[in-house]
C-alpha cells in the first residue's frame, strides 16, 4: 500500500491542528475589531481604544492624552458599530454555511429561500406606507422586517412540504425562488406607487451599520446570534452527513426532514434578525463559508465557528472600506461586500475546482 498523501489543512480529525488556527482566527478577529474602532475621522491607536473601553467598563482612570470625549466616541459610537458589523457578519456567514450544506448547493443562502425578500417587503410597509407599531414605534422596522423574513421561510417550507412530503432540496429551492420573485414583485409595486421614501428604502436594502441604535440593538442582536450559532452547532454531525444526500443521511439514522426544518428555521432567525437591523447585505453568507472550507476543511465542527469568525471579520473590514474609501460620503456596506466578495468568491471557487 502506498504512503498516504496528506494535505494537512483538511485534517479536521486532529483537534490540536485546527485548534491553533482557531486561536489565530480569534486573534485576527480582535485585530480587525480594534482596526475598525481605530479608523475614522480621528484615528485612535489600539492601546487608547483598550484604555477607553476599560474606563467605560471598569471605571479605570484615563491617561491625560485621552479626553473623556474621545473615550465616549469609542464607547458610544465606534465600538457598538463595529460589534454590530461583526455579529451581523457572523450570523450571515453561519447561515450561509448551514444552507449550503443542508440544501447541498454551494450557491444557497437564506436569501435563496426568500428571507431578504420577505424582510424587504416588511421594511417597505414601514417606509412607504408608514406602518407603525403602537407601543414600539422605533422598533417597527426591525420587528416587521424580522417577522416578514421569518414568515416567508415558513410559507416556503409549508408549500414545499405540501408539494413534496420528503422535502427534497430542489423542491425547497424552487419554491423559495418562485416565492421570492412573487414577494419582490409586491415590493416593486410599492416602489412604483410610493415615490416618497424610495431613497431610504434603497439604502436600507443595501445595508448599513450607521445609526442603527447603538448598544440597544446589540442587546437584542448579540444574544440571538450567539444562542443561534450555539444551537446550530449542536447539529454538526447531521450537517456533515446530510452533505452526502438525504437517502444516505436517512440510512445512517438522521431524521433529515426534521433536521432540515429545524436548521432552515434556525438560519432564518439568524438572517432575519440581522437584516431587520442592518438591512440586506449580500455575499458574506456566500463567500465566507467557501473560504473557510478551503482553509479548514468541511467538517462542521470547524466550519460553523470559523465561519462566524471569518464572516464577522470580513464584515468589519468591509465596513471600514465603506466609511473610509469615499469619506466623508459613506458607501452602503452591501455594495462593498459585493464588490470585494464577487471577485474573491470567483477566485476561491474556481481555484478550488481547478
Amino acid at each position, binding site marked *: *500500500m*502506498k*504512503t*498516504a*498523501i*496528506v*494535505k494537512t489543512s*483538511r*485534517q*479536521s*480529525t486532529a483537534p490540536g491542528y485546527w485548534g491553533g488556527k482557531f486561536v489565530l482566527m480569534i486573534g485576527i478577529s480582535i485585530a480587525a475589531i480594534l482596526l475598525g474602532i481605530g479608523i475614522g475621522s480621528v484615528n485612535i491607536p489600539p492601546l487608547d481604544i483598550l484604555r477607553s473601553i476599560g474606563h467605560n467598563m471598569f471605571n479605570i482612570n484615563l491617561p491625560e492624552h485621552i479626553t473623556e470625549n474621545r473615550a465616549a466616541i469609542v464607547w458610544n459610537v465606534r465600538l457598538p458599530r463595529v460589534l454590530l458589523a461583526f455579529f451581523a457578519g457572523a450570523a450571515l456567514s453561519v447561515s450561509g454555511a448551514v444552507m449550503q*450544506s443542508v440544501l*447541498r*448547493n*454551494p450557491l444557497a443562502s437564506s436569501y435563496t429561500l426568500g428571507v431578504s425578500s420577505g424582510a424587504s417587503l416588511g421594511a417597505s410597509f414601514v417606509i412607504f406606507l408608514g406602518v407603525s407599531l403602537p407601543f414600539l414605534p422605533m422598533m417597527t422596522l426591525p420587528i416587521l422586517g424580522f417577522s416578514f423574513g421569518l414568515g416567508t421561510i415558513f410559507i416556503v417550507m409549508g408549500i414545499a412540504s405540501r408539494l413534496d*412530503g420528503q422535502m427534497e432540496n430542489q423542491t425547497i429551492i424552487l419554491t423559495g425562488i418562485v416565492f421570492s420573485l412573487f414577494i419582490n414583485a409586491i415590493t416593486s409595486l410599492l416602489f412604483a406607487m410610493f415615490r416618497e421614501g424610495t431613497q431610504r428604502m434603497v439604502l436600507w436594502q443595501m445595508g448599513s451599520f450607521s445609526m442603527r441604535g447603538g448598544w440597544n440593538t446589540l442587546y437584542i442582536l448579540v444574544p440571538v446570534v450567539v444562542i443561534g450559532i450555539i444551537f446550530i452547532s*449542536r447539529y454538526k*454531525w*447531521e450537517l*456533515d*452527513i446530510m*452533505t*452526502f*444526500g*438525504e*437517502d*444516505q443521511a*436517512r*440510512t*445512517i*439514522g*438522521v*431524521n433529515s426532514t426534521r433536521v432540515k426544518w429545524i436548521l432552515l428555521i434556525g438560519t432564518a432567525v439568524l438572517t432575519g434578525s440581522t437584516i431587520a437591523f442592518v438591512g440586506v447585505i449580500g455575499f458574506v453568507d456566500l463567500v465566507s463559508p467557501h473560504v473557510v*472550507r478551503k482553509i479548514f*476543511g*468541511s*467538517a462542521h465542527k470547524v466550519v460553523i465557528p470559523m465561519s462566524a469568525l471569518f464572516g464577522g471579520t470580513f464584515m468589519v473590514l468591509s465596513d471600514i472600506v465603506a466609511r473610509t474609501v469615499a469619506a466623508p460620503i459613506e458607501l452602503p456596506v452591501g455594495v462593498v461586500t459585493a464588490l470585494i466578495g464577487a471577485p474573491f468568491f470567483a477566485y476561491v471557487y474556481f481555484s478550488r475546482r481547478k
Partner: protein
Amino acid sequence: MLTIKNLSAGYGGVDVIHNISMQIDGNLSIVGPNGCGKTTLLKAIANILPFKGSILVEGMHYTSMKRRDISMKIAMLSQMVGIYFTYSVFDTVMMGRYLHIKNRILSTPTSEDKTAVLQALKAVDLLDEKDKEITKLSGGQLQRVFLARTLVQEPRIILLDEPTNHLDLKCQIEIIEYLKKWAEEGNRAIVGVLHDINLALSLSDHLVVMNKGEIAVDGNADKIVKSGMLNQVYEMDVAQHMRESFERWS
C-alpha cells in the same frame, strides 16, 4: 431476520412495486431488468421511502420502531453519490457512528468509535489513507470508504444497491467477498441488488427475480437459473450467454 408482507411503494403516489412478500433469513440477491423496482424495494426496506404493507426486522414491526432503531439494524450501501464538500477518509467513516455517538450525553466520539473506524478502514485496506481527502480517492477506494462507513454502523443487515457499478472486476469481487465473510462471521445478512448475474449468484444461493414491480420467482439460485425463469424475465437465454462468456475467456 427480515419479513416483508404485501409491500407496495413508489413515487408521487404511483406504486412501482406491488404486494411484495418475502422472508429473508440470510444473504439474498435480487435481480431483474431495469425499472422492475429493485431499488424501490431496497429503499422501502431501508425506510427511506414511504410504503404500504408491513416490514418486520428480527420480529419487530417498522411501525413500532423509530428511524434510529431501524438504522441500528439495517444499513445501506448505494451507488456512488455526488460529493459537494470534501472530508477526510477518517471523518467520512466516523459519520457511520452517528447513532452510537448521539446515544451518548456529550455526543462526542470516544476511543470505542475511533477503534471501530480504524478497524473498518483496516478491513477495507484503507488505513494508510485515513487522513486523505475523499475527493482525492479513486472510485474503488471511495466505495470502500462508504463500505467502511456502513460497517461501523454495526448493522445486522446490509442492503446493497448496485454498489459495485463503475468499479473494476477486482474491486467488485473484493467487496462482495468481504461482505459475505462479514455476514457469515456475525450471523448477519446481505441483501444485494446487483446487475451482474454472476456477482449476484456469487453473493447468495437465495435469489429473487423481479419483473414489472412484482416477484417473478423466489428460490434457490441454481434451480432458478436452470429452470429458464431468468430467460423469460430478461427475454434472452441468460444461461447460454453466461456459458458462451465463460467458454470465450477460459
